[in-house]
């Protein structure tokens, strides 16, 4: 009896281990039956906040909904530089320019004369939605699940619990409906403001909706957007519509490749508007209804999300051409195959890094991002700075893909600040000196383990206007030495500092070292060395840095008020166009005064002039020239210390095929292929449980008890107890 409790503990173990002793390895976190299926396993760290195509904006949200919703355009998967190709549309939209009177202008009309641009979008005929209960009809315009009573909802906790589903073709009206939703007061689209300024009639619509919505707030229920007119969108027939935007804004085509412009069936909106469904967390924000290659069939944010093939997906074939090297890389093996290639994609919740990385090495995740810096030891750098995998990983057949992201991390100066701001020579020299002193190469080596390239200006590689080599170098910070940029010596920074009026960093007014303030957010213990590092960088030229750390909310508040002096921030491009970077320093976008994205509050009339000219130009020689001028201006004015363009590193197993890093497209899952047989084989090979410590522990325990037992016997026998 005494021992029984213990034994039960052990048997619990053994039974549990035995349960899965046969077939797949015991540590396989998935059901054994799934082993040979055409399923891709990947992970998510935090549940996506929004899956509503009008709301989703973060990378982790787009990762899901870009597979489900289908906007008119997409980025070509294999082509570089990035270019758009039709997706739901039959061809790229044609653009017509109109003047104030609505007269059609020539394509090469002067920008000043262009009042409106009209995008003409011709849709495919074979588009259809995924099966969904919202479409189930009981008659003409009568829907079975649109007015559910509490009784109907008994036993329904998830969307899968509905007993009937249906589908219908996608129409141009659905696209119109979605554009109207961007202005819906309850949807809170992050682009609502921007689109209201752009699309003709969207702002008045938004105001009207807000009024009507407020008026009927009490009664609740569905606000049908169909009767509301939207001047800027004209539906010509079921598969043809036009969008009218203000002015000339060629970048609008990129927005047409984002889920913001995917179709939304009014049935879904009506269906999800039922308060009883909301109370069960069955909302559009949770269960998307799309026409894309996949449908989200299970969404359990606590455990996993499952994308399954959409049976009604229109015909789309694997691209047959790409970059010249794609053939050799085996990226064209599937050319002409119907997409998607995978039956299921399972996203598993994984918050901690140890399990995540271990499962990847055990073969239970097919690919692993290297976004956070935990896994950098898997990587080594070869002579030319090329990243390579360590031998262990190479032996496992793991591949590494790297790409420089279309983003920039920078250290900004508040140009309204009396010390570091302003375009006068003094503060400008000070900013230049600081730009020189902060050794971004060291930053990359220590904090990013080489996963980044030092920024030479505002534009990351891969964006039009970025120049390679000496021509693209920031001549104020670097010298061109033996074929590569080399940071200028610190003496140069000290000279600049002297010219700025702070010899050796001493402020003549106080006779003390000049003190600067860096505003930043601190999220974890890892940030401390980082902040110390910044302090050290400025100390090199005799300046003192005081760190003011706050949480992100307070930080944003400070930025909005223009109270910061130095700050760290970053930008992730929305689309591959230089405009999406330069607008961050456009004077009219100043954060403090206009609430825009120009956090440095930089305003240089010359730069602003060039920006306006460059913004609406096509990618030609002239644009390139203007971009170089703008780069030269910001390099001289140094409103930012141009920091780093991070590189994304991703690892994938040998059975994970057709992957090519595409930083613009989010809908790449449909191209991927898994070799499930190879995967099962490797998993079995890599996961051989080691049981002998269990036996050893048992033997040790008994060995420990045995003498005690004897001692006890002895005691029992001795009379003097």
């Amino acid at each position: 009896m005494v021992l029984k409790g213990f034994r039960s503990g052990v048997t619990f173990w053994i039974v549990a281990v035995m349960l899965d002793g046969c077939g797949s390895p015991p540590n396989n976190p998935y059901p054994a039956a799934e082993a040979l299926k055409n399923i891709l396993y990947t992970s998510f760290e935090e549940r996506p906040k929004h899956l509503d195509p009008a709301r989703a904006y973060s990378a982790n949200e787009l990762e899901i909904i870009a597979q489900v919703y289908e906007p008119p355009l997409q980025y070509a998967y294999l082509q570089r530089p990035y270019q758009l190709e039709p997706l739901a549309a039959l061809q790229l939209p044609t653009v017509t320019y109109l003047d104030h009177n609505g007269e059609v202008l020539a394509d090469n009309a002067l920008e000043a004369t262009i009042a409106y641009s009209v995008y003409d979008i011709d849709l495919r005929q074979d588009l259809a939605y995924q099966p969904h209960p919202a479409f189930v009809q009981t008659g003409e315009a009568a829907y079975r699940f649109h007015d559910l009573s509490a009784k109907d909802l008994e036993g329904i906790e998830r969307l899968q619990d509905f007993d009937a589903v249906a589908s219908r073709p996608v129409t141009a009206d659905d696209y119109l409906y979605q554009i109207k939703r961007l202005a819906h007061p309850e949807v809170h689209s992050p682009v609502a403001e921007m689109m209201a300024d752009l699309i003709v009639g969207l702002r008045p619509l938004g105001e009207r909706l807000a009024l009507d919505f407020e008026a009927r707030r009490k009664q609740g229920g569905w606000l049908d957007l169909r009767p509301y007119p939207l001047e800027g969108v004209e539906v010509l027939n079921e598969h043809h519509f036009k969008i009218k935007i203000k002015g000339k804004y060629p970048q609008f085509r990129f927005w047409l490749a984002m889920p913001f412009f995917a179709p939304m069936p009014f049935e879904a909106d009506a269906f999800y508007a039922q308060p009883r469904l909301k109370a069960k967390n069955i909302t559009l924000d949770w269960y998307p209804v799309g026409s894309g290659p996949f449908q989200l069939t299970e969404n359990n944010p606590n455990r996993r999300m499952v994308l399954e093939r959409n049976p009604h997906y229109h015909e789309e074939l694997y691209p047959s051409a790409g970059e010249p090297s794609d053939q050799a890389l085996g990226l064209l093996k599937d050319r002409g195959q119907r997409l998607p290639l995978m039956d299921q994609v399972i996203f598993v919740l994984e918050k901690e890094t140890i399990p995540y990385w271990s499962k990847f090495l055990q073969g239970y995740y097919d690919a692993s991002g290297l976004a956070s810096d935990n896994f950098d030891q898997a990587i080594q750098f070869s002579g030319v700075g090329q990243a390579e995998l360590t031998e262990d990983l190479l032996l496992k057949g793991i591949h590494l893909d790297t790409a420089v992201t279309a983003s920039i991390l920078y250290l900004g100066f508040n140009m309204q600040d009396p010390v570091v701001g302003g375009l006068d020579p003094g503060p400008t020299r000070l900013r230049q000196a600081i730009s020189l002193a902060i050794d971004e190469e060291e930053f990359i080596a220590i904090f990013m383990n080489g996963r980044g390239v030092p920024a030479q200006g505002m534009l990351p590689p891969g964006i039009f206007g970025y120049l390679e080599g000496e021509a693209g170098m920031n001549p104020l910070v670097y010298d061109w030495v033996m074929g590569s940029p080399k940071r200028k010596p610190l003496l140069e920074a000290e000279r600049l500092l002297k010219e700025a009026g702070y010899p050796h960093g001493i402020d003549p007014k106080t006779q003390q070292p000049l003190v600067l303030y860096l505003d930043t957010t601190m999220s974890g213990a890892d940030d401390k060395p980082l902040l110390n590092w910044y302090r050290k960088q400025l100390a090199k030229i005799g300046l003192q840095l005081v760190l003011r750390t706050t949480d992100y909310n307070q930080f944003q508040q400070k930025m909005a008020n223009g109270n910061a002096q130095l700050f760290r921030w970053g930008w992730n491009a929305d689309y591959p166009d230089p405009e999406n970077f330069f607008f961050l320093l456009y004077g009219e976008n100043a954060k403090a005064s206009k609430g825009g994205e120009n956090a440095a509050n930089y305003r240089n009339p010359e730069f602003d002039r060039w920006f306006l000219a460059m913004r609406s130009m096509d990618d030609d020689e002239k644009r390139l020239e203007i971009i170089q001028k703008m780069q030269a201006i910001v390099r001289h004015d140094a409103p930012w210390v141009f920091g780093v363009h991070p590189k994304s590193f991703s690892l994938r197993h040998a059975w994970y095929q057709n992957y090519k890093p595409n930083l613009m497209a989010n809908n790449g899952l449909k191209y991927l292929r898994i070799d499930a047989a190879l995967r099962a084989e490797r998993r079995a090979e890599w996961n051989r449980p080691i049981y002998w410590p269990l036996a050893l522990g048992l033997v040790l325990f008994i060995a420990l008890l045995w003498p005690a037992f004897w001692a006890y016997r002895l005691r029992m026998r001795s009379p003097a107890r």
Partner: protein
Amino acid sequence: MPQLLPTDVFFFLTLFGLFGLLVYSLGQTHLRRPWQKVFQSTQAMVSLVILIPYLLVAVADSIRLEGVLVPQAGEGPVASSEPLSLLDLGLQRLRLSVEKTYSAPLQVELHAREMVRLPDGREIWSTPRLRYGGSHLIDPFKERTSDLFRRAIKGFFKGALVWLMLTVPLLAMVVWWTGDKRRVLLDIALGRSRFPWRAVLLAGLFLAMVVGVLAEWAAVYHVLGTDKVGADVLYQSLKSIRTGILIGTLTTVATLPLSLLLGILAGYFRGWVDDVIQYVYTTLNAIPGVLLIAAAMLVMQASMARHEAAFQSLALRADVRLLALCLILGLTSWTGLCRLLRAETLKLRNLEYVQAAKVLGVSQPRILLRHILPNVFHLVLIAVALDFSSLVLAEAVLSYVNIGVDPSTESWGNMINTARLEMAREPVVWWSLASAFCFMLGLVLPANLLADVLRDAFDPRRVS
């Protein structure tokens, strides 16, 4: 110029307070027997031998000087911009010998390989030598082991020497005190003395030798390796001691007046006073600790952000946060002691001598001070001792949930928190985690052992 941070002030107040209590209680006749029991316990005294160095480190780390001259690489000494503690100054070498990034304990090379440019311009793939760790070695592959060995021996002897220098006068005093030289020394040698001299001295010797070896090694190596930005892990671990001890003691002591006052009042006056006090602590007690702490910390951070102007330096900010954490932790943990005190007072007030004092017309504050307070002292002592280790452990957990000490404060919790990521590295970076583990265990284990003895000695229920 000495400088005090808020926690320093409170820490010293706490230490003086605890010390005063100790001295006071030693003078109390009814506590003499339990104290004797404690002093005669090998377990307690050996634990104390380990705890005292910890405490000394924490004290040394709480005395700060401003404007100390710090040697700078390549230049003359420069006045340090932030106040440095005595510990910082003592460990100047550890603090300043910062490598590029990770290196394993006692290694002379970086942990990871990287491209190294040879003098002749070729580039090879290898692990570069450390800037400081083992830089005195010319050919580390041949010399390192023997150098480590030699230094270990040297450290042993140095430690032993220091131990001798302390022990001999001590023993001389003991012998002089008792008179009978030979017998006393024989008793000590055989472990028969009432005070466990032999065990204490042996533990001291062991400790001195370990410290000796570590110090000898630390002079030229990174004994516990370096972290991501090349900072010495031994230095971090030592700095964390202050945080641990501070949270362990300050938390209980800061709310001690509250629980003493309320507990005794509730027990003594009963009636509505009792009802109100009971209501307050039951309510607080009913809220799950972590959640209450989380909520309070979130709110505290928000209010600190609002009054940002009050905190000029990062150090002050972190320090205020540490203090706030202690108070918040104290707020959640005072209820237990309060309840015990109430129950004990309930018992005491019915005892004859209290009743007699009442009848004789002794004023109530006087009864509380003279008759009740001294007799609940043992509960306070046990509570402080028992809470100490659980609070040190709690700090680590709270840091994991990001509601612990400031990320810039050195603490074991923060070390573990970062080490979680390091365990996912390939190859594994284990030394930060291992160091935090050892140093925590080194503090918590003796503290638990000591608390065990204290409880046995003072808890009347256990006197058999």
